[in-house]
């Protein structure tokens, strides 16, 4: 028993000494770097600062976590320093080497980055192909496609690496090889845009203009990225950025307003965003004022955004609809007309809504011609939105309605032509292009579209419009 007690006492002693040393060691560790967050919105600054404090990094994973936060907000040197510190603490951790490798790319240190990806593999990183992929991209950064090719060949399990190999072959003048590789990728990922675009370039150079045009058109509507390791990392970066974005506060406030918790929404805007001007926060505050019934205040906030940061379609729509609530119809028409014409936002629905509202106003005023023209524009923009984001066939009716409501506009007819072409309905496509050109004989893309459709029909290739035809 005495021996046991003695051993226990020895253990306690060792624990005390080792613990004290560890404690001292932690106390003497470097403190986290503080980023200069000047010029960022208050909410983002708070988020970054609270990460520094909350993480209070001492262990490798905490340093890595802070490194990620800095990386997401563009503090690349700080990010590298944090990952390097994590590596000092856990030198055998392959995932830290991998993360440091990526951080070094963003810091513009390509050579050092490559060394870290190599180290990650030496330490047994579970996804060696991703390391090879980044090594290949780094070799390209050094304008060394031959070395890059060697790396990508070790990562052929990744479609993105095979695509890079196809690009290298294409640039080296090996178009047959590039064509073969691209067709394989397209077979596997028929929706991905990039391989289709590159294959179109290959066809173009081979003098296969019809095949090239078909691929260009069929891949033109919507961009679908080929999956790649870098895209995966960007998505995680974006998630962190979203949490630190002022739009996050706006979304929270909107959710609270939707739940009828107006004072909570008001509180969160005050607490998170303070009194510092920011268009997104002012926009959210205007919603709170509306919910409180303070329409004048709501309008004043929206006007301040425009005064201090300019007008775009979205802001015109926001102010226009607020003015409707305040019965200022003349102003509504003025703001919405300018906003719709700016067409400055890629949210096409906003522009469509503006035209729809202008059509309603014109109709109320008895100006049916104007109402019809605006309604035509609204249908056109609703159609464009659906055309790009959903099943394109759903846009057919909208384009037809738009064209019928305003017989002087060629645009909906052009898109009808594109759409019918994509659906393989070449007779309808031809008719639409021809109708378009009757209105605007100088519509170059309609001229090209018509020539293409005619050429395909003459060659008897009614069903040759699908991208799979590239296999032939």
């Amino acid at each position, binding site marked *: 028993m*005495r021996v*046991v*007690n*003695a*051993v226990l*006492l*020895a*253990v306690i002693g060792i*624990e*005390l000494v080792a*613990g004290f040393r*560890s*404690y001292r060691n*932690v*106390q*003497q560790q*470097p*403190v986290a*770097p503080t980023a200069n967050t*000047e*010029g960022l*919105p208050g909410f983002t600054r708070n988020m970054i600062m609270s990460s520094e404090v909350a993480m*209070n*990094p*001492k262990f490798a994973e905490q340093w890595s976590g802070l490194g990620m936060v800095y990386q*997401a907000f*563009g503090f*690349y*040197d700080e990010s590298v*320093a944090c990952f390097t510190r994590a590596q000092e603490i856990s030198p055998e951790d392959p995932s830290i080497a991998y993360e440091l490798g990526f951080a070094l790319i*963003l810091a*513009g240190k*390509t050579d050092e980055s490559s060394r870290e990806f190599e180290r990650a593999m030496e330490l047994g990183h579970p996804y060696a192909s991703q390391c090879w992929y980044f090594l290949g991209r780094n070799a*390209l*950064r050094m*304008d060394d*496609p031959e070395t890059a090719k060697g790396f990508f060949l070790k990562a052929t399990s990744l479609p993105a690496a095979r695509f890079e190999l196809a690009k290298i072959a294409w*640039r080296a003048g090996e178009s047959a090889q590039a064509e073969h590789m691209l067709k394989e990728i397209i077979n596997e990922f028929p929706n991905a845009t990039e391989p289709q*675009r590159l294959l179109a*370039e290959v066809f*173009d150079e081979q003098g296969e203009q019809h095949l090239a045009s078909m691929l260009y058109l069929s891949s*033109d509507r919507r*961009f679908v990225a080929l999956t790649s390791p870098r895209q995966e990392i960007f998505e995680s970066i*974006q998630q962190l950025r979203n949490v630190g974005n002022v739009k996050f506060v706006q979304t929270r406030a909107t959710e609270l307003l939707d739940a009828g918790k107006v004072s909570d929404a008001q509180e969160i805007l005050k607490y998170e965003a303070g009194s510092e*001007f920011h*268009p997104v926060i002012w926009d959210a505050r205007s919603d709170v004022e509306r919910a409180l019934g303070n329409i004048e205040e709501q309008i004043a906030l929206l006007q301040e955004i425009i005064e*201090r*940061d*300019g007008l*775009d379609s979205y802001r015109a729509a926001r102010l226009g609809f607020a003015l409707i609530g305040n019965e200022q119809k003349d102003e509504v028409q003025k703001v919405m007309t*300018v906003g719709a014409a700016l*067409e*400055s936002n*890629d949210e096409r629905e906003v522009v469509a809504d503006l035209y729809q509202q202008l059509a309603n106003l014109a109709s109320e005023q008895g100006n049916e011609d104007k109402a019809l023209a605006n309604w035509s524009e609204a249908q056109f923009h609703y159609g464009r939105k659906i055309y790009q984001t959903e099943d394109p066939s759903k846009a057919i009716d909208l384009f037809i309605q738009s064209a019928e409501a305003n017989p002087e506009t060629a*645009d909906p007819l052009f898109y009808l032509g594109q759409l019918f072409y994509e659906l393989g309905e070449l007779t309808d496509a031809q008719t639409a292009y021809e109708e378009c050109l009757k209105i605007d004989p*100088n*519509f*170059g*893309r309609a001229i*090209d579209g018509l020539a293409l459709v005619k050429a395909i029909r003459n060659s008897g290739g009614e069903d040759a419009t699908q991208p799979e035809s590239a296999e032939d």
Partner: protein
Amino acid sequence: MFREFLSWGSSLVPEPIAPLEESGTRVRYGLTIALVLVATAIPIGWLQMIATTTPQGPPLEISRAPSDLEMSPIRFRAFELTDHEDWSPRVTNVNIVDLDENGEPELLVCDAVRNTIFQYQRLPDGSWKETALVPENTISVPARTEVVDLDGDNDPDILVAVFRSLTPTSDPIGQVVLLQNNGDNEFTPRVLIDQIRRVSDARSGDFDGDGDLDLVVAEYGHEFGRIFWMENRGDLTFVDRELMRAAGTVSVSAEDFDGDGDPDVAAFIPSEQEEVWIFENTGEAPFQPVQRKIWGTANFDFGGSEMLSVDLDEDGDLDLLLAAGEDSEYPVPTQQSSHGVYWLENLGDFEFELHSVGSLPGCSSIAVADIDNDNDLDIIAGSRFNNWHVDGTTSLVWFENDGEATFQTWKIADSPARLATVACGDLTGNGQKEIIAGSLFNNEPIIRPGRVTVWTQEGEEQE
């Protein structure tokens, strides 16, 4: 040694109290249990202390790229052209022109906050008069201007490339607009083409040799884009004809690169492609140019941002200057070692050789002028994407030409930041060149703000 330690340890354990053997055993067990508890509690305690303690060592060292640029020997004084107080100024282009053709230069400024083109005229008292050439919110995010008599009525019109949105999109929202001069320097906007993707550049030239001016357009877009030319059919009607499918073309140029008397087209296509193409005009009508890739790099991160055509070495043919530093690959732009200014020297027969002029992280804009009046062309460059949260990072430099087309880099300024566009010329008529730059704050941080800044020379620094 260990045995000695054990015996020393056991001597510390108090002897059990007699007389009962049973109670002695109980005490010994109790002691052992207590020691076990203590031995367990200590690491937990330490861990808790370690977890809650704050490191108090020195701040973690951050390794930054060295900024060893020397300050310009020519001293400059900077001032803001106007007192606009936009929250995030968004000037996309500055252009020195002589719109009223009175021999005195004026400035055209593309403003993406006010969505118009401003003209600035210098008044005799040295102040500047601002005129919006079309009402505000008429032209959404104008990207670039070229002064040209497009309608052939002997007065200068303004060709405007219209970007329409600074948010990346492939939506067909772009336009090419002509501000048509009514002869009295009053302008009416006429849309020459719409339903195209965002337009970054548009230039004029008689490509088909039929005596009227056609256009070449960089349809920048985002994931998709094109380069096309617009055949002039008279009465300001045009037919668009595709030259190349390429997203992200930043600049086009309509100049005679082979000296055969007709305009060719040069285009700088970054966005993963990083190539410069020339569309050689063979002089035949209709315009069916021969495509020539004159330069390209496998470095997709090169960061091409602007191209200028200029005879830099003054050997009688047109060279190209490239700016690299615009990085749209990442959510927050990075600074890469390739960023800076490059000179593509025209060697004849569409052979071009690339030379590095000098580096500037985040370089986005370039201009050419003889800054030091030594009869050769120097280069001015602005940075839009430098590491702005680090004090002292450079926003404006000039590259001094030694007359042999080798260059020394001089720092001019670190503020304002985000110089998306620069121009250089003698605005005051005093024989010295002024530099004008516009800041584009389309995302945060909004740091070291400015809008349109003018740098005037204050002479050589005294030794």
